[in-house]
């Protein structure tokens, strides 16, 4: 027999929501609030960390190559989509000519947005080696290539980091132009 575990005391709402967003990269569960949904087309991006947290992410925010920026999507009503870890967004800027053709339409002037959650065991991606153009994860040392659409450069991760399509908004603000290209979070290719 297979005893799949159930949480004692019932399932909390966040867990249900997390399960919902985990299975549907584009949608939002009927019972979930906008804060729990993944980034969607029309959202704007704001800085998620540091002294300027909450301010709009613009091309100027990534003026210097070599910077990794953590961002949060904000829906048109002004609600931050920070209810799910899978909504974590990281942005880096590389030379536009280095970006693979197939993801170039999802980028703006060399800025690539990706899921900030490692596809191995779900840790937060926070290392960026601009020299090697690699993102890295502290937990198990997986590496990813943003210019190649989040392709795995070194495991143990097996699945690429999903890319979040970007568009340029007013005043150089970066906007979300579509859903993540695949399901964020742990998984296999």
């Amino acid at each position: 027999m297979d005893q799949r575990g159930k949480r004692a005391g019932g399932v909390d709402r966040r867990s249900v929501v997390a399960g919902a967003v985990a299975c549907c990269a584009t949608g939002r569960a009927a019972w979930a609030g906008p804060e729990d949904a993944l980034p969607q087309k029309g959202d704007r991006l704001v800085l998620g960390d540091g002294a300027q947290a909450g301010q709009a992410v613009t091309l100027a925010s990534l003026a210097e190559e070599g910077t990794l920026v953590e961002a949060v999507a904000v829906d048109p009503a002004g609600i931050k989509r920070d209810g799910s870890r899978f909504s974590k967004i990281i942005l880096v800027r590389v030379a536009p000519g280095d970006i693979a053709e197939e993801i170039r339409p999802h980028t703006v002037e060399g800025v690539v947005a990706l899921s900030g959650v490692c596809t191995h065991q779900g840790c937060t991606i926070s290392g960026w080696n601009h020299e090697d153009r690699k993102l890295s994860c502290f937990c198990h040392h997986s590496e990813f290539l943003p210019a190649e659409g989040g392709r795995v450069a070194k495991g143990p991760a097996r699945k690429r980091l999903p890319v979040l399509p970007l568009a340029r908004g007013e005043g150089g603000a970066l906007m979300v132009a579509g859903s993540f290209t695949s399901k964020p979070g742990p998984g296999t290719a």
Partner: protein
Amino acid sequence: MSRLVRKGLAAAAPVALALAGGVLALPGGASAAPLDYKPVTDQRLANPEPENWLQYRGNYQGWGYTPLDQITAKNVTRLVPAWSLSTGVSEGHQAPPIVNNGVMFVSTPQAQVLAINARTGEVLWRYQKELPPELSQLHPTNRGVGLYGDSVFVTTTDACVIALGATTGKVKWEKCVAPWKDGYYMTLSPLVAKGKVVVGVSGGEYGIRGFITALNAETGDEAWKTYTVAGPGDPAADTWKGDSWKVGGGSVWIQGSYDPATNLAYYGTGNGGPWTPDARPGDNLYTSSVVALDLDSGAIKGHHQYHWNDAWDWDEVSAPILIDIERGGRTIPAAIHAGRNGYLWTLERTKEGPLTFVEGKPFVYQNVFASLDPKTGRPTYNQEKIPGINRRAAFCPGLWGGKDWPPEAYNPKTGLFYIPSNDNLCSELAGTQAGLRKPGELYIGIPIDEVLNSLRLRDGVDKSKPFAIGAIQAWDPKTGKRVWTHDFQDTAMWGPLLTTGSGLIFAGGTSDRKFRAFDGTTGKMVWETRLNSGVTGVPSSYMIDGVQYIAVQAGWGVDADRMLNGLNAVLPEERRVSVAPQGGVIWVFRVMGEEATAQ
């Protein structure tokens, strides 16, 4: 005594794992005589039968010793697999196969427990908790189940304890002891005694405040909770400044050892957090220590801090091994611990709890301690070996220490204490301000690139030719001297040790996927075989129908894999292990030949 029905369940047929009235139901499954399940009692845990392996290290004292002696240095060359079983998951498989009267319980990564017929390998039931989808797992592993009565207890990486029916695999209760979203998790096997299930939390890298807690084995209700980071009201509160204790780390990685005679449990504790010592001035009790807890109340009755204000990520992961030793013409009730800080510590236990320093000696190259106070064992430090905020330092041993979590062993017949060690590896680090803590996010105060590129070889190591890193060492606790060392070249050693009544040692741990046997008196290797994946599992031994078995999980991952990454960065390309396959398999060995006819 409950009856546990076993049927011919194909291990690789998950479709067969369907509930059918609480009884294993597999079309065409051959039935066999039910297995009797013998409830586990305090008496049995305190005096385990040789044919069983009832807890993490076999006994409360943490020895990693089986009195079984059928497998010897002479016949071990005829050791062959009796059966094997894929666990279906990858990552670090570190738990020992726990065996009670012919029933084996194995925990794996991803919150899975398997109950297996220990003689045939038939799966009796399987439990797997669905972990929160958003959970991040820094250490996707588990270090074993605890048994008590008709229950099986397991901890999970979302910081919960689950009690399962030993004969059914059904959940009896579940208790989450801390919020995983705040960075808390658990990997350790529970210590079970006197109706209590005792566990501790990890999460020091996320800025948690560590604790040990006891739950009622019947209900899961909390009996007590004791922090490993002293806060207001604790006599050691002044070893922390300001609010640093709130995020002070002190993870509890490994099951405590326990002395039923004194009712004291001994736990090793993790380092302080963040890693940079200047972020938390003071000694930071009770981090990087051993604490003696009264099992009834959880009160800390004694402690010894191996090193203060840690700067090197030296968790003192393991609980000490409890043995009596002869020193200076008297018998000392000792607590012995091979530290991640590279020193072998001998302490004297007292009935009341306080621990007194007896001896500390380096068992690998260590360049941080300038001296030890001869009375207290408190080290002084070479200042240039202390990394900190905006301060770079190189130090030996490195981040993973002289011995990480893999447990030592003690053999009362050889009288020797065995250590799985790593030498000639150092680290170099520089820290930054940790900044604002965000729940569930890394909080170590060291840039990630610093950590990933921190591994260094000891000065003077000639890497143009193979050199010793991993080793098994044998020490004589009576003399405090090393008796032998078995070195491994170009590979670290991440293998927990099992020692037997015939004087053998079994261990894996090297990156070549080999599982080996050694003569415990000489250190000579007497058998080896290559398995599907590297072995970082705790080996165990048991006997059924007169046949002795050796059981272990293969399944490379977690810190062994992290260190391999580091080694590959410093070793010449032709000597790197570039492929370290993952995937868990339970392996069970027996000697082929006349001993096997008992079946």
